[in-house]
């Protein structure tokens, strides 16, 4: 039961993009087409799931016993960077079209604050259980994907709408995101962890 609660809470109630304001760069940058958003979401999910397991082991198994907690930022970033490299090589070989479509945003997953944010929240909230930490990360990634896909759907429609000149590009995207964020406020208080 707790597993379900953690997942729903990370995906909907505390949606990373719309409630925690994490991962805005790919949200604004990538999500211009539906299929690339989905691909991006899947890549982030993969990286996040593995990264949260590995960082959990490294943090509790190496850093804490040695009293080196202050090194966690460097350690987490390096682990993420290595994983992104692996995912990149895998996609390049097995899904070259997706690899091309994601372009620069694929290596930038390393610096996606949603990924590092999830890892940092994991040690704050779920340092006791590797399963909950992974569920939290996958839930967060699912919420990120959901926001990205919804947003890209709206943006495809925006292309055909008469947007005032001054609002073109980032401003209208911000306002759309704001409205979506209001919608997600509806989930507030549904689950209190």
């Amino acid at each position, binding site marked *: 039961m707790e597993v379900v609660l953690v997942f729903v809470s990370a995906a909907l109630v505390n949606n990373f993009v719309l409630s925690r304001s994490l991962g805005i760069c790919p949200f604004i940058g990538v999500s211009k087409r539906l299929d690339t958003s989905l691909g991006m979401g899947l890549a982030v999910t993969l990286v996040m799931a593995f990264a949260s397991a590995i960082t959990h082991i490294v943090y509790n198994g190496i850093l804490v016993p040695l009293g080196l907690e202050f090194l966690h930022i460097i350690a987490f970033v390096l682990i993420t960077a290595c994983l992104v490299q692996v995912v990149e090589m895998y996609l390049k070989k097995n899904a070259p079209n997706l690899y091309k479509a994601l372009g620069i945003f694929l290596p930038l997953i390393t610096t996606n604050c949603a990924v590092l944010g999830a890892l940092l929240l994991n040690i704050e909230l779920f340092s006791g259980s590797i399963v909950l930490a992974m569920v939290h990360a996958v839930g967060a990634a699912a919420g990120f994907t959901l926001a990205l896909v919804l947003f890209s759907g709206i943006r495809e429609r925006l292309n055909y709408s008469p947007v005032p000149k001054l609002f073109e590009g980032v401003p209208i*995207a911000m306002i759309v995101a704001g409205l979506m964020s209001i919608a997600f406020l509806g989930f507030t208080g549904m689950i209190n962890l």
Partner: protein
Amino acid sequence: MIKALVRFKKGILDENPIFSQAIALCPVLAVTTTVNNGIGLGVATLSVLFASAMVVCFIRRFISDRVRIPCFIVISATFTTVVQLLMEAFLPALNDSLGIFIPLIVVNCLILARMESFAAKNPPLTVAFDSLGMGLGFTLALTLIGAVREVMGFGTVFGITVIPEAIPRNILMILPPGGFFVLGFLIVGLRALKRKGA
């Protein structure tokens, strides 16, 4: 020297990281519920940016081109750790309200972008002014957004009441949606000003 000063001004105005380039938006939206938070995170980011850019500038000859990105990340992670430890020690209240956004400075796109596109290619003086300008531009943007949201959401600036109690506060402004709206409309406003000036 003149070129350095031009870079400094560019970072604050023409190429303002938030308003013109629209990068590094996550911390901008998340922490700018008050002016204090805005300035706090702005200055923290500025220090990490400046220190990392200078280090990259001085040791770039020894970094192989292939591993430069991991090196840049380790450098900025080091300074982020330093800033976080300093804030924990000397500004615990601010550290608490900024939460995970202090460690997240390490993945701030602005810092990596400046290291990659500027600090790795230019002489030290220009790099110093460039990173100071970009950092200040970032800080100003955070402060401005923080001020707008604090005034509209709490009716205060720096915690001092500026709007009479009788006028209702708009609580939405300090919730996540407010960040999106304020940033969107500020960009529109600045575009309008620029167009008028041009």
